[in-house]
Structures are given as C-alpha cells and as structure tokens.
C-alpha cells in the first residue's frame, strides 16, 4: 500500500504520460521523415484529439451526450478569425463587426486566449440554461443549441459573411503546435477528472439520486464540466482555423459533430485514454483506406477500391468495434501503472 513518493507521483501522471509520449514520438517521426500529406494528417489528428478530449471532459464525466460542443469550436474559431484575418478585406466585407475587431488585427497568442475565453463564456451562458436538464432532454437541447448557432452564423452576413468561407486566416499551426494543444487538452482533462469537481460529476453520472443524497449539486458540477469542455473544444476550433486558413459555418456542423462523437464512442466514452485512442484508430483506419482507394502499386498491377467503399468499410468497422466492445476500445479503463492485485472480489479500478 505505501509506495514511495516518487512512485505515487508517477502513478498520478502515468495516465497522461502514456498517452502523450507516443503522440510525441509520432510527431517527431512525422517532422523528420513525413511527407506533407502525412504531416498534415497527423496535425489534423492532433487537433481532433483536442476536440474529442474536450468533448470527453463533459460527456465522459457527466454521462450526458452533447451534440452542441462543436458550436463552441465554431464560436472560438470565428472569433479568432475576426481577430486575425484579412486586414484588407475585413473592414469592407464584415461591416457588422465592432471597430475593435473590424479595424485591428491582434497577435496570435492573445487571439488564442481570448477566443478560448469567448468559447467559455458561450458555454457558460448556454450551460446556465441547459444544465438544469439531464439525460436525453439535455442532449437534445445541446443539439438544438448547435442548430441555433448554425442558423445564426449562417445568416448573420455582416459579421460571418454568411455561409461563405472566409479565406486568409494566418496558418501557424504546425504539427508541433497541434501537439502542444493536444498535450494541454489531455492534461487539463486529466486534472479535471481527478479533481473534486470531476469526481462529483462522475458520481452524478452513475446515480443522480444518490449523488443528491450525498450533497452534490448536479447543476453546478455539470456546469463546470460544460464550461471547461467548451473551452477545450474552443481551443480545438482555434487550432482548426489556424491550420486550415479558411473557415465556414458548415465546417462546424453535423459532420464534425458526428465524426468527433464517433471517435469518442469508439474509443470509449468513459475514459480519457478512450478519447485519444478513438481518434488515433479512426484516423489511421481512414488513412489506410484512403491509400487503398487511391490505389496501391503491386508491381505491374494497380489495385484500388471503388470510390465510396472506404466510407462503407469505415462504418462497418465502427459497428464491429461497438458490437464486440460495447464500452468502446478502452472500455471504462484508463491506462494505469500495473499494480499488485488487491484482495477481495470486484474489478480493478479504472
């Protein structure tokens, strides 16, 4: 029971290390030897990790599936765009912006911070209303919130340019920056998870009634999770827009919502490791299929699958994973230091 202090600390940070170190390794490899395509795939995956880990902070801990978080990514991304984009065009095309956005351009650091904070504020405002609800009613209202976000941003021409893409956002997100984002997200998620707030939120997930009887406020604990995860997802949005250089409202809508949720569930909705593993697995599989579809040279023969089969395979694979691992690839476990089995029955702690 009484391990040394060093081991105790290692035990605490291990679940983060074990996720972060392999990611670093991949990034180093990509940086040294990868093609543009590979580097960009890795960067994209790291940004997805930020998004999915952000989702996990709320969904995994509260047990409430949120369909609305991609909206916070959108809000942050648009704000970052307004702060940094196209100094020439902005005053003409985005006339509805307040002067401090329309006429000025800000540094990337302050932009990132402010945008993430804006996502947090948005999450706070929405959370104040929606966290009264629980279960399916909460889920569906977050979906409603996403639709509202979309309807507003798609038609608020004077500041978002409607559905059109805005082009010319500075692209500073390299694979290293994305790695930084992913590490930050993972660390934040882990710290939250083991904090008192995280613990209380997870308790409420397992049994709302018993949690109330234990003196826990469902509302405030979930609200904290909601805001924090809104901010992390917002960070994902900021990275996305500065990676791609363009932004449009449709990029922050159902497709991204579905794919990120799918990654989370396939990896394991109830474990931080699951969030990361889900992204890695689905991205790699999609990448392999994409290469197959593009064709593989086998000597003189060129094998390629018909267009569209890739998506069908991916869908089938997701189903298979879910059928054989109901709680996702990671189940409900985190990757912990192996320890000596305890006495008595029951499962090992996650």
């Amino acid at each position, binding site marked *: 029971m009484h391990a040394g202090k060093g081991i105790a600390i290692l035990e605490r940070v291990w679940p983060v290390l074990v996720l972060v170190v392999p990611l670093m390794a991949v990034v180093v490899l990509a940086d040294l030897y990868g093609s543009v395509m590979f580097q960009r795939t890795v960067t994209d995956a790291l940004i997805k990790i930020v998004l999915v880990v952000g989702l996990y902070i709320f969904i995994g801990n509260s047990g409430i599936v949120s369909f609305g978080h991609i909206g916070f990514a959108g809000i942050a991304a648009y704000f970052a765009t307004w702060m940094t984009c196209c100094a020439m065009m902005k005053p003409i095309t985005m006339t509805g912006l307040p002067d401090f956005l329309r006429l000025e351009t800000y540094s990337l650091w302050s932009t990132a911070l402010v945008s993430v904070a804006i996502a947090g504020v948005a999450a706070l405002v929405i959370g104040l209303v929606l966290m009264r609800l629980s279960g399916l*009613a909460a889920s*569906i*209202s977050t979906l409603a*919130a996403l639709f509202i976000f979309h309807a507003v941003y798609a038609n608020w021409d004077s500041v978002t340019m409607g559905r059109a893409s805005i082009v010319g956002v500075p692209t500073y997100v390299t694979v290293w920056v994305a790695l930084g984002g992913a590490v930050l997200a993972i660390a934040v998620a882990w710290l939250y998870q083991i904090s008192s707030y995280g613990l209380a939120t997870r308790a409420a997930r397992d049994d709302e009634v018993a949690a109330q009887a234990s003196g826990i406020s469902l509302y405030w604990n979930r609200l904290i999770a909601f805001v924090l995860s809104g901010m992390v997802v917002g960070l994902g949005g900021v990275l996305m827009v500065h990676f791609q250089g363009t932004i449009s409202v449709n990029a922050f809508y159902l497709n991204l919502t579905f794919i990120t949720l799918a990654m989370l569930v396939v990896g394991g909705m109830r474990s931080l490791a699951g969030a990361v593993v889900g992204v890695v697995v689905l991205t790699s599989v999609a990448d392999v299929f994409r290469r197959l579809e593009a064709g593989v040279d086998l000597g003189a023969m060129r094998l390629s699958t018909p267009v569209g089969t890739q998506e*069908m395979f991916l869908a089938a694979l997701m189903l298979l994973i879910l059928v054989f691992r*109901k709680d996702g690839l990671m189940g409900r476990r985190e990757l912990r230091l192996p320890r000596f089995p305890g006495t008595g029955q029951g499962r090992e702690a996650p």
Partner: protein
Amino acid sequence: MRNFLQVMVDAIALGSLLALVALAIGLVFGVMRLINFAQGDYITIGAYALVVPAASLTPTLLIGALPIPLMVAGVLLVVVMLALATERVAFRPLRDSDPATLLISSFAVSYFLQHMIMLVHTGRPKSIGIGQALTTPIEVLGLRVPGIQVVTMGVTAVLLIALVLFLKRTPMGIQMRAAAENFQMARLLGVPANRVIAMAFVISGLLGGTVSLLLIVQTGTLDIRMGLMPVIFAFFATVIGGMGSLVGAALGGFLVGVSSVLLQSYLPEGLRPFRDAFVFGLVIVILLVRPKGLIVIGAARERV
C-alpha cells in the same frame, strides 16, 4: 382569416409528415433505447427503390413503374426488409449497450447506407415524376389543399390511432412494451422478444416507406440526404413530446411542423432566415418547462 386558415392547413400538413417520422423514431426508441438516425436512410432508400439502380442522371422507373397498389406495396416491402436487415445485423448485437453507443451505431449504419446509395446512384440528385395527380390542389371552402397534404394528414391520423391501439390493447403491443423495458425478463415470461423487437422495426419500416412515398409525390426529387432533416426534426419532436409516448411523439411532430410553418409565415422578412433558430429555441424552452416532455407517461420519473 382565410389566409390564416390556409397557413394552418399548411402547418398541419407539415406537422403530419413530421409526426409520421417521429412515430417511427419514438417507437424504436421506446423498444430499445435506440434513437435510430438510419430512419432517414430508410426513407431515402424507399424513395430510391422507385428507380433502377444506376449511375445515370435521368433514372428509369423500377418499382415506380408498377401500378399504384403494387408500387406502394413494393416500396413498403423494400423499406421493411431494410429495417429488418439493419436490426438483425447492426442493432440486435448491440441490444444492451447504452443509448449513446446505440445512437453512434445508428450513425454508422446511416453513414454506411448513404454511401451505399452513393456508390450505386452517385451523389447527384435525381428527379422522378410520380403521383402528379395527387399534387393538384383541391378547393375546400375557398382553401387550397394539395391532395398530397390531405393524404398525409389522413395517413398520419389513421396510423397514429392504429399504433396506439396496437400498443395499448393487443397482446403483441403489451409484449412489445414489456420487451422494450426489460428484454431478459420478457423472455423469461415467454415473450418471443427477438421477434417482438423485430416487429417494432417492421413498423418503423412501414412508417419509413410511407414517408418515402409522401415525400416523393410532394417533391419529385431524389437525394441522398432527403431523409436527414425530417429525421432530425422528428428526433426533436420525440423528445419534446415525451420519450416513450407515441402520442407525445406525434404531438411533438405536429408542434415542430406547425411552429416552423407559422414562423415562416409570420416572421418579418429580415428574421425569416433565422426561422430554424426560433424553432429550436422553442424546443429548448419547452424542455426547460417540461424536462420530461409534453406527455409524461406514468413511470418516466423514477421513484426513489
């Protein structure tokens, strides 16, 4: 006044269509906690079944070329088979997963089906002109009601009543609700639970096929995403109606459809683009006021 009545007719017609979709979503949810997004693809595939599967842009009719009774039966059969196949292959093995996993698996099924259609038909919208006669309006008391709207309202009313009676009164219906709630226990009591749950999918297939036909007559177009928005609206409808209550689902469908039409009709021009934002805002308000939905069935609230 007449204009208002006309708007109400439009509103109820759209409400009926969404109510039909919501019934299917609500039924399957009631039976296995599955919010079946693939319901949208049932609708889409039902519609595509009318034409020969081919990449060509101007499709030739397949089932659509049959005499009307056969055509209707054909579409329903296709969709029912599809619903059964998805149940057997994808949803049955996942039966005791939690709702989130089931939901994601239905995304996967939907994604699969969508790309299957794309593979066969290409992603390009197609057109198909059947049921022309049904689209011509009938004048009733100075109101202009397209035949298809009348049909939609009638079909919805009939199916809703039939379904409610089926679930409340028939042994199969009670068994279905029992299996819905506790699958293993139902089996212990001799309920052929697999068959009973498959039955729910058969019904959702019938509803899906009906919606395919109604939509096709109304729009004359085929598109791989044609089922998506109705299903998303129905999803909202089912929740605000009260999960697990079919009448609630239908009511929710009406409410969403009606409010969408009313907003479209009465919002000032500048705000009309934000119509959907208002509809969804309304959804949130309803849920805040009634978190369990409009119709709360007795035991929806768990007793401590």
